[in-house]
């Protein structure tokens, strides 16, 4: 089976995402880790585009690359003295960590392969994207917006999310505020 253009794009994006993710968890220099994390988020945004979820891709760009990465880089710079330490960046459990991660990954692959063939022939269920009528995917953003404010869908989680964001903001300011005795 020759790979189609979609599949080639998917493979390239996946390799970029996973390679950047590998740099995130292995690089000694935290700043490089943070930059690789931004690349990985960008790859995930591209995956959202492949999945016809353009709104989420834009949200990913804004929230993850625009906000969370900048927060992480700020935190790295504020603790910069420790960033260039020559000591090892892994703790004593790193071997066990590799083992655990590989076991978990193997378990995932076994479960996924059990339900959906890993290399399905054409025509098997979910071997390709579900065909949908024209306009349904464009309407999905409007449907998402309506679901967020409709009583029989997500209005309570939506309001709770805004309260949680407020609480997180106040909490973050309170936690990071310098204590009185520090201000000399």
């Amino acid at each position, binding site marked *: 089976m020759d790979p189609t253009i979609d*599949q080639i794009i*998917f493979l390239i994006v*996946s390799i970029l995402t*996973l390679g950047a*993710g590998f740099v*995130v*968890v292995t690089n000694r220099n*935290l700043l490089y880790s943070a930059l690789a*994390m931004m690349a*990985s988020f960008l790859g*995930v945004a591209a995956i*959202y585009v492949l*999945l*016809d*979820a353009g709104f*989420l891709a834009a*949200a*990913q760009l804004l*929230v*993850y690359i625009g906000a969370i990465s900048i927060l*992480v880089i700020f*935190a790295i710079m*504020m*603790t910069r003295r*420790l960033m260039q330490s020559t000591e090892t*960046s892994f*703790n004593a459990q*790193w071997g066990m*960590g590799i083992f*655990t*991660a*590989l076991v*978990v*990954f193997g378990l*995932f*692959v076994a479960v996924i392969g059990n339900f*959906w063939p*890993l*290399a*399905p022939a054409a025509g098997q269920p*979910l*071997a*390709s*994207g579900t065909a*949908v009528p024209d306009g*349904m995917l464009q309407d*999905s953003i409007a*449907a*998402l917006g309506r*679901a*967020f404010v409709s009583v029989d869908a997500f209005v309570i*989680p939506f309001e709770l*999310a805004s309260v949680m*964001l407020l609480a*997180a*903001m106040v909490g973050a*300011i309170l*936690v*990071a505020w310098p*204590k009185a005795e520090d201000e000399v």
Partner: protein
Amino acid sequence: MIPLSWYLLLAAALFSLGLYGVVARRNTIAILMAVELMLNAVNINLVAFWRYMTPDRPVGLAWAVFVLTVAAAEAAVGLALVISIYRSRDSVVAEEMDLLKN
């Protein structure tokens, strides 16, 4: 077209990478970054299942947006904690945060 299982495999690999980072890294900020990778993997799964299983209902999209929101809040509070601990203990290494030990 791309089979659903490929997206699930990508998400599983990204999740395992993040898991390794959480377990093995010493720096707290690195641990937080690995947690963000894991949340991204979960989001890929949610969006893939939405696209392949229920494209007529935006349930998966809504969950993905909530995960995004919680990740933003988690990053803000987590990094504030890291900075606060750095102020009081001069360290961001997870093993040295042992105030509650013994």
